C-alpha cells in the first residue's frame, strides 16, 4: 500500500485535494439544483433523489481518497507529513501551509469517514431545500478538515470560522422547534471566543516579524522564534483558551451545547458532537499548549483548567442523569466526556495525553452513533422524550441491539472503545494529579447510571404505549450505516494499538516540549 501511494505521489497532492473537493462538490450540488429547477421554482422529486446520491457520492469519494493517509502518514516522523506550502498574502506573511501529524491524520479520517454516515443518517428526514443543505454540509467539511491540517495561523482561523456559518444555517433552517434561539446562541458563543483569539493571533504574528518587518503567521516559524514574556504568554494563552474552551466545551462555557445539539437536525448533531467539539481539544494540543508552554505549565493555570475539566466531567454526568429528553442526555454526556479529554491533556504525561486523544476519537464514534440512533427514534416517533418510549426492544430488536452496544461503548465498558481512552486518562492523571483523577473516576459510575437507566426506560420496561406498537425496525440503510460504527467500537476497544501507535510520537513531542519549558523556568515554586 505504501509503495502504491508513493508511486502516485499521494502525499504531495492529497491535502489540497481533500480541502478543495468538498467546495467543488458544493458548487456541483448548487449547479444541479439551479439547472433542475423549473420555472415555478419548485424542484421535481427526481431531482431530490438525485442530489442525495450526488452528495453521498461526493462524501464517499472524499472518504476513500482520505483513507490513504492511514498508510502514507508516518506517525513516527518528526516533520509534517503530506506537507504543502503555497504563498497566499505575501504582504501579511500569510501562507497556505498544510500538513498533518498522527493526531491530525486520525481526526481528518474521523471527519471524512463520519460524513457519509451523517448524510445517510439524514437521508429521509431532510425534505426541504436539499441542494442548499448538502452544499452547506460540503462547505462545512472543508472547514473541519481545514482546521486539522492548517499550519498557518491565519489560514487556521479562516477555517475555524468557515465552519460557523454553514452550521448556523443548518441548525437554523433545518433544526427543531427552538432552532432560531439555538443557532444564534451557538454562533455568538463561538464567535466571541474566536474573535479574542484573532487578536492574539495577530499579536503573535507581529511579535515575530520577518526580515522586512512584516508579520508572519506560519505556525512553525512562530513556534521556533516567538519570545514572549510570561505575562504576554499568559494573556495570549487566555485568548486561545477562551476560543477552544467554548468549542470543547468546558464548564461553564458549555451552555450553547445542549441547545445546539438538541435543535440541530441529525446530521448537524452528529457533526457537532463527533467532529466540531474535537476542534477545541485539537486546538489545545496543536496550538495553545505548544505555543505558550510557560502559561500552560503555570501551576495556577493548570489547577484552574483541571478543576474546570473535572467539574465538567461530574456536572455533565449529573445533569445528564436527570434529562427527560434523550437527545439532551446525549448532549450533556458530551460535556462529561470532553472533560476527560481536557483532564488528560492538562495532566500532561504521555499516557494521559494519548488517552485524551483516544477519548477524542472514541467519543466521536460513539456519540456520533448515539445521535444517529436518536435521529432514527425521532423519525419514527417524533418525540425525543424518554418517557414516550418503553419496551421498544420488542418491536425494534435490531435498534435495541445497536443502542445497547453504543451505550456500552459510551459508558466505557471494557472491550469497547470508550474504555481504552478513559482508562488511560485516569491512570495517566492519577500519576500526576491523583485528586482530580479520583473525582473524575466517579463519573464513570454516573455514566453507567444515566445511560443504563435511559436504556432501561427506552428499550426495556413494558411496551405500554399504543403508539409504540407500530414502530418499524431499522431498515437496511440504517443497519448499513451502523455496522461500520459498531465495528469501530469493538476494534478500538479490543485492539487499540494501531491507533495508539499513530499518536505516540506526536503526544511525546507535545509533552516534552511543554515539560522542557517547565524545567527551564528558573522559578519552580509551588511544586
Amino acid at each position, binding site marked *: 500500500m505504501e509503495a502504491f501511494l508513493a508511486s502516485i505521489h499521494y502525499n504531495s497532492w492529497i491535502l489540497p485535494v481533500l480541502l478543495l473537493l468538498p467546495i467543488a462538490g458544493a458548487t456541483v450540488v448548487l449547479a444541479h439544483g439551479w439547472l433542475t429547477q423549473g420555472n415555478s421554482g419548485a424542484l421535481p422529486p427526481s431531482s431530490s433523489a438525485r442530489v442525495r446520491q450526488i452528495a453521498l457520492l461526493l462524501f464517499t469519494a472524499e472518504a476513500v481518497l482520505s483513507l490513504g493517509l492511514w498508510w502514507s502518514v508516518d506517525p513516527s516522523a518528526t516533520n509534517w507529513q503530506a506537507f504543502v506550502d503555497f*504563498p*497566499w*498574502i*505575501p*504582504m*501579511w506573511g500569510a501562507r497556505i501551509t498544510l500538513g498533518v501529524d498522527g493526531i491530525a491524520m486520525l481526526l481528518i479520517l474521523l471527519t471524512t469517514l463520519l460524513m457519509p454516515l451523517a448524510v445517510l443518517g439524514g437521508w429521509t428526514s431532510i425534505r426541504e431545500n436539499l441542494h442548499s443543505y448538502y452544499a452547506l454540509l460540503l462547505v462545512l467539511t472543508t472547514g473541519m478538515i481545514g482546521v486539522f491540517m492548517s499550519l498557518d495561523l*491565519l489560514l487556521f*482561523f*479562516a477555517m475555524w*470560522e*468557515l465552519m*460557523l*456559518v454553514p452550521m*448556523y*444555517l443548518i441548525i*437554523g*433552517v433545518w433544526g427543531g422547534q427552538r*432552532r*432560531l434561539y439555538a*443557532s*444564534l446562541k451557538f*454562533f*455568538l458563543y463561538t*464567535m*466571541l471566543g474566536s*474573535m*479574542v483569539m*484573532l*487578536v492574539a493571533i*495577530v*499579536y503573535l504574528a*507581529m511579535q515575530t516579524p520577518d526580515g522586512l518587518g512584516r*508579520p508572519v503567521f506560519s505556525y512553525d516559524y512562530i513556534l521556533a522564534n516567538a519570545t514572549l514574556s510570561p505575562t504576554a504568554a499568559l494573556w495570549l494563552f487566555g485568548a486561545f483558551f477562551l476560543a477552544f474552551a467554548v468549542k470543547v466545551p468546558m464548564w461553564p462555557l458549555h451552555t450553547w451545547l445542549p441547545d445546539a445539539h438538541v435543535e440541530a437536525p441529525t446530521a448537524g448533531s452528529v457533526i457537532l458532537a463527533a467532529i466540531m467539539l474535537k476542534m477545541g481539544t485539537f486546538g489545545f494540543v496543536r496550538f495553545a499548549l505548544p505555543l505558550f508552554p510557560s502559561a500552560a505549565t503555570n501551576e495556577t493555570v493548570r489547577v484552574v483548567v483541571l478543576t474546570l475539566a473535572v467539574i465538567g466531567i461530574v456536572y455533565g454526568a449529573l445533569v445528564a442523569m436527570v434529562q427527560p429528553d434523550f437527545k439532551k442526555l446525549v448532549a450533556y454526556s458530551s460535556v462529561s466526556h470532553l472533560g476527560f479529554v481536557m483532564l488528560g491533556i492538562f495532566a500532561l504525561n504521555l499516557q494521559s495525553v494519548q488517552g485524551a486523544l483516544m477519548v477524542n476519537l472514541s467519543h466521536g464514534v460513539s456519540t456520533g452513533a448515539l445521535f444517529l440512533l436518536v435521529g432514527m427514534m425521532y423519525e419514527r416517533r417524533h418525540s425525543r422524550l424518554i418517557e414516550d418510549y418503553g419496551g421498544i426492544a420488542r418491536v425494534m430488536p435490531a435498534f435495541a441491539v445497536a443502542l445497547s452496544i453504543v451505550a456500552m461503548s459510551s459508558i466505557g465498558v471494557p472491550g469497547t472503545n470508550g474504555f481504552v481512552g478513559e482508562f488511560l486518562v485516569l491512570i495517566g492523571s492519577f500519576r500526576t494529579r491523583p485528586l482530580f483523577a479520583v473525582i473524575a473516576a466517579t463519573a464513570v459510575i454516573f455514566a453507567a447510571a444515566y445511560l443504563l437507566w435511559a436504556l432501561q426506560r427506552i428499550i426495556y420496561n413494558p411496551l405500554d404505549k399504543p403508539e409504540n406498537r407500530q414502530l418499524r425496525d431499522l431498515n437496511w440503510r440504517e443497519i448499513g450505516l451502523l455496522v461500520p460504527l459498531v465495528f469501530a467500537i469493538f476494534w478500538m476497544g479490543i485492539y487499540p494499538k494501531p491507533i495508539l501507535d499513530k499518536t505516540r510520537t506526536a503526544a511525546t513531542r507535545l509533552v516534552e516540549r511543554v515539560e522542557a519549558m517547565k524545567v527551564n523556568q528558573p522559578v519552580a515554586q509551588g511544586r
Partner: protein
Amino acid sequence: MNFDLAVPAQLMEALTPDIVLMAGAMGLMLAAAWRTDSDRHQRAVGLASLGVLLVTLGLVIWFGARDLTAGTGPVAVDRFRWSADVIFLVAALATVALAIEYNAREGIQTAESHVLVLFATSGMMTLAAARDLMIVFLGIEIMSIAVYVMAGLNRRSAKAAEGALKYFLLGAFSTGFLLYGIALVYGATGSTNLPVIGQRIVEYALAHQGMLLVGAALLLVGFAFKVAVVPFHMWAPDVYEGAPTPVTAFMAAAVKAAAFAAFLRVWLECFGSLEFAWFGPIWWVAAVTMVVANVVALAQRSVKRLLAYSSIVHSGYLLVAIAAGSRLGASALLFYLLAYTLAVFGAFAVVSAVGRAGERSLEISDYEGLWNVRPGLAVGMAVCLLALLGFPVFGGVGFFAKLYLLQAALAAPSNLAPLAVLLVVTSVVSAGYYLHVVRVMFMKPRREDAVEPEPVGGMTRAVLTASVVLILVLGLLPGRLATWARNSPPTLGTTTSAPPIARGLP
C-alpha cells in the same frame, strides 16, 4: 515626476482629475437644466454622469500608476490621495447606478440629482488632496452642500425633509466648529499648511499651548460630527433613514470615507506631536462609539436605521486607525474603507431592491423569507452583512479589513491592545443584529400577506453582483489589495525646506 506646486501650470496638472470631474459636473448641470424634467432625461443625465465618473476614475488610476510626488503646497500628490479617490469614485458610480433606477421607481425626475453626486465627489477628492486647512474646509463645504440637497431630494417625503433639515443644521453647526478650530490653529502656529503646522509645533515647542490645544479639540469635534461618532452621531440615523436609499449608501460610505481621509491626514501631519493630548479623547470616543452604537443597533427595526447605526459603529472602528497614528494605520484605513464601501453598497442595493415604491418595505420583518422568493438578494445581503461583521471567507474582504485594523492597532507605539480587544468583542455584539437579518431572511417563513418583491432592475443587480463578487474574490485573494494599501501612505513632513517663518509668533 515631481510637481512644483508653486508653479500654477504644475498645480493645475496635479489637480487634473479633480478639474475634469468638476468641469464635467458643471457641463452636466447645464445639460440637466436644458430639458424639462422627465424620467428619460433623468436616465440620460445619470448615464452621462456615469461616463464622467468613469473618465475621472481612469485618470485617477493613471495618475496613481505614475510615480508622482510634489513639494510642499496646498495639495498633496501621493498614493493616499489617488487611492482614496478610487474609493470615492467607485462609491459615486454605484450611487448613480442605484439612483437611476431608484428615481424611476420613486418618481423623482430631477436630473440634477445625479449631478449633485458629481459635485459631492469632487468635494471629496478635494478633501483627499487637501494639505492645507483651508482646502480641507473648501472640500468639506463642496461635499456637504451637495449632500444636504441630496438628502432632501425626495420632496414628497416628510421624513426626508426632516432628515435633510436636521443634517443641514447640524452640519452647518459642525462646520462652525471646524472653522473655529482652523482659526485657532492658525492663530497658534501662523499657518494653515499641514506640514508647516506640524513642523512649527515641534520647532517652537507649542505642544502645550492652550490656543493650539483648543483649536485641535475643535477640529476633532468637527471631524467627529462629519464621520458620525458617539456622541456626535445624533443626526445620522434620522438622516440616513429619510434620505433616498442610494443617497444613504453614498453618505454611509463615501462621505464618511472622505471625512476620514482628511481627518487622518490632518492628524498625522499636524498633530503627531500632540498625541499626549488627543490619544485619550480619541480612545474614549472610539470605545464609547463601539459600545453604544452596537447596543443601540440591536434594538432597530428598520433596515435603514440598522445600517445607519452600523455605519456609526464602523466609524468607531476606524478611529482605531486614527489613534494608531501611523502609516500602517493609514494603510489599514484605506483598506477598511474600500471593503466597507463594497459591503455598504451591496447591502443598500438590496434595501433599494426590496424597498418597493414609496419605500414601504424597510422593516426587518419585510425581509422574512426573502430567501424563498428572491434567493439572489438574500444571499447577496447575507454576504454584505457578514462582510460588515468582518467574518472570514463568507464575509470575504471584510475580515481582512478588520485584520489589517488589528495589525495597525497592535503595532502602534501607544497601547491600543485593549481597544483592539474591545473592537472584536463589540463586533460579536454586532453579530447579534447582522445575523438577525440573515436569520429573518433564511429561517423565517414568508408571511402570508407579504407582497411579492418587485423585479430587480439591471443596474441594481449589477451593483449588488459586483459588490458581492469583489467582496468574495478579494476575501480569498487579498494579496494585491494589501500591497496596494501598504504602498499608499500619505506623505508626511516637508520634502523641501520649510518656508520662512512669520514674524511675531508667540
